[in-house]
């Protein structure tokens, strides 16, 4: 097992290097010269040239990349173009809210998808099956920003039940219920966006398990249908669901960018949009890298958990 993890980590090294290279190349395509931002516009062209030389901006691309990578390895992601704070600090403040939002959404989606998916597989082509099918398709087909707008329109503006954005009320009590009220709408929107794929997967995975011999055996020896479902089917159904959590991560991050923007949720997604609008490339590069590493780590974690949960799988 530990050997397998080490080998996976070793394979990941070139992929991570490639990701940083692609990232660095894209940001370097950007028009505009960082020197123009950093120094006095009254300097002469000759002064600027010396400055560029001193900052090493005239070196070949790969040399600049290597230097940037060296800093990165030491934990230095550079400084924001707009606020001049260290990028690492800027991103650090935003990780918590994003994890809170994504975690709640994922939990919510699972709590709905697992029972509904299993129920619709147990009675295929029933009313419930069609209903979950429609919800699933809607979840896949509704753009996140539109769901967000509709939710704000209905639940904040018309019914006035929940706040329309932010993470806390202005000057309001810093009580956790206040934060919870702010969390409900964005988490629901993000959960709905991920629900569709999960429902489909749980349903097809359950259908597969129900066909297996051991389920027939369990039924044949006289177990009640509930016991068969809970003791035998559920555990096997959940196996592919674990892998899916890892595979869903990129979509979850993409969804949270838009959800956070629509609900002004102070997380990494909102920071991404701010960085893009402000052409704050160092921050953007940091966010992009962090997201990619999160995706890789998520996939690895899912594979490991899969091995832990399913004793039939042996990693050599």
């Amino acid at each position, binding site marked *: 097992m530990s050997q397998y993890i080490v080998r996976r980590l070793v394979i990941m090294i*070139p*992929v991570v290097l*490639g*990701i940083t290279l*692609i990232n660095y190349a*894209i*940001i370097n*395509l*950007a*028009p505009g010269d960082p020197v123009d931002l950093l120094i006095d516009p009254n300097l002469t062209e000759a002064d600027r040239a010396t400055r560029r030389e001193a900052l090493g901006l005239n070196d070949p691309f790969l040399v600049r990349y290597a230097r940037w990578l060296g800093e990165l390895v030491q934990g230095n992601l550079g400084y924001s173009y707009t606020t001049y704070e260290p990028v690492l600090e800027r991103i650090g403040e935003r990780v918590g809210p994003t994890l809170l939002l994504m975690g709640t959404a994922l939990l919510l989606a699972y709590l709905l998808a697992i029972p509904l998916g299993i129920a619709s597989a147990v009675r295929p082509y029933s009313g419930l099956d069609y209903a979950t099918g429609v919800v699933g*398709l*809607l979840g*896949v*087909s*509704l*753009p*996140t*920003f*539109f769901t967000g*707008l*509709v939710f*704000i*329109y209905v639940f904040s*503006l018309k019914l006035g039940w929940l706040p*329309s954005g932010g993470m806390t009320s202005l000057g309001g009590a810093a009580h956790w219920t206040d934060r919870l009220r702010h969390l409900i709408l964005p988490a629901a929107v993000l959960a709905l966006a991920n629900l569709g794929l999960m429902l489909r997967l749980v349903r097809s995975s359950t259908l597969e398990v129900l066909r297996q011999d051991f389920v027939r055996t369990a039924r044949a020896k006289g177990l009640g249908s509930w016991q068969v479902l809970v003791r035998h089917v559920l555990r096997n159904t959940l196996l592919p669901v674990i892998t899916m959590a890892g595979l869903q*991560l*990129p*979509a979850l*991050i*993409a*969804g949270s*960018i*838009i959800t956070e*923007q*629509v609900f002004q949720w102070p997380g990494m997604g909102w920071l*991404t*949009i701010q960085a*893009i*609008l402000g*052409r704050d490339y160092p921050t*953007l590069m940091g*966010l*992009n890298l962090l*997201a*990619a590493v999160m*995706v*890789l780590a998520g996939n690895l974690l899912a594979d490991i958990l899969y091995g832990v949960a399913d004793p039939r799988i042996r990693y050599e």
Partner: protein
Amino acid sequence: MALRNDEEKVNRVASSIAQKNRSLVRWGVRPAGDSYWALVVRRFLRHRLAVTGLVVLILMSLAALAAPLLAPHDPNAMDLFAFSAPPSVEHPLGTDSLGRDVLSRLLFASRISLSVGLGATLINVVVGVLLGGLAGYLGGKVDSAIMRFTDMILSFPPLMIILVLVSVLGPSLMNVILVLGLLGWPQICRLVRAEILKLKEQDFIQAARALGVPDGRILLRHLIPNAFPPVLVAATFGAAQAIIQEASLSFLGMGVQPPTASWGNLLTDAQSMGVLGSMPWLWLPPGLMIVVAVLSINFVGDGLRDALDPRLK
């Protein structure tokens, strides 16, 4: 377990026969019974939602094509007597804050949004089939290089890297199509590669090789056409994805730039609570158009998947 293996074997033989028949058809030899594509059409027509989706899409495309004829007003003309006006006879879907007719803008936006979906998907298919075909057929170092590159592209959360690239290149219609097209191919690439690895071992390819057919011809005439059905399904779902992504980009202001209307940027104004609350005619119709278009495409994709290969269900 033993039973499952047998089933798989039967399936493999059956699909091998089906594939052989398909290539026979291409050589003008018809197997007994219906041709593959006649069967596909018949199975597709039986899928009611898919047919409905297709009809909706055709109607939408026609409306988009005929936008200059159907639109009651010039999409960019301002009505100086009706700023932010609710729906009326003159303006069936009302006007925006600059007095432009929402229905006309919606019709012209369909042209932009549908062509982004189509354009990006075409690029996805060309790049994905080419790279996947090369990886699957050549194998070895080429294969692992292409697949590692695919892994890297897939490690970036989709919207994130699209946003970064568009902001670096500058938001415009052409750049949106290019970026979506050049980042959306990995799925198709993996699919084509897997399909070709499977096909490569089959008798009709071995036969072609034994006959001395050159590599390029085997790839283009025998392998890629036979890998086509799953690609068609993936491309259909991909087009739905591309339409959502264009809408998201334009909504965030990083896609199609005003005054050119797209479904996404018609919703941008609704980010202000005032517009959202008091002018639903401004943001509800374009939002619904996106949902209807994407749903229809997904239905068609479902129908195609079931029709092209019932075993994929």
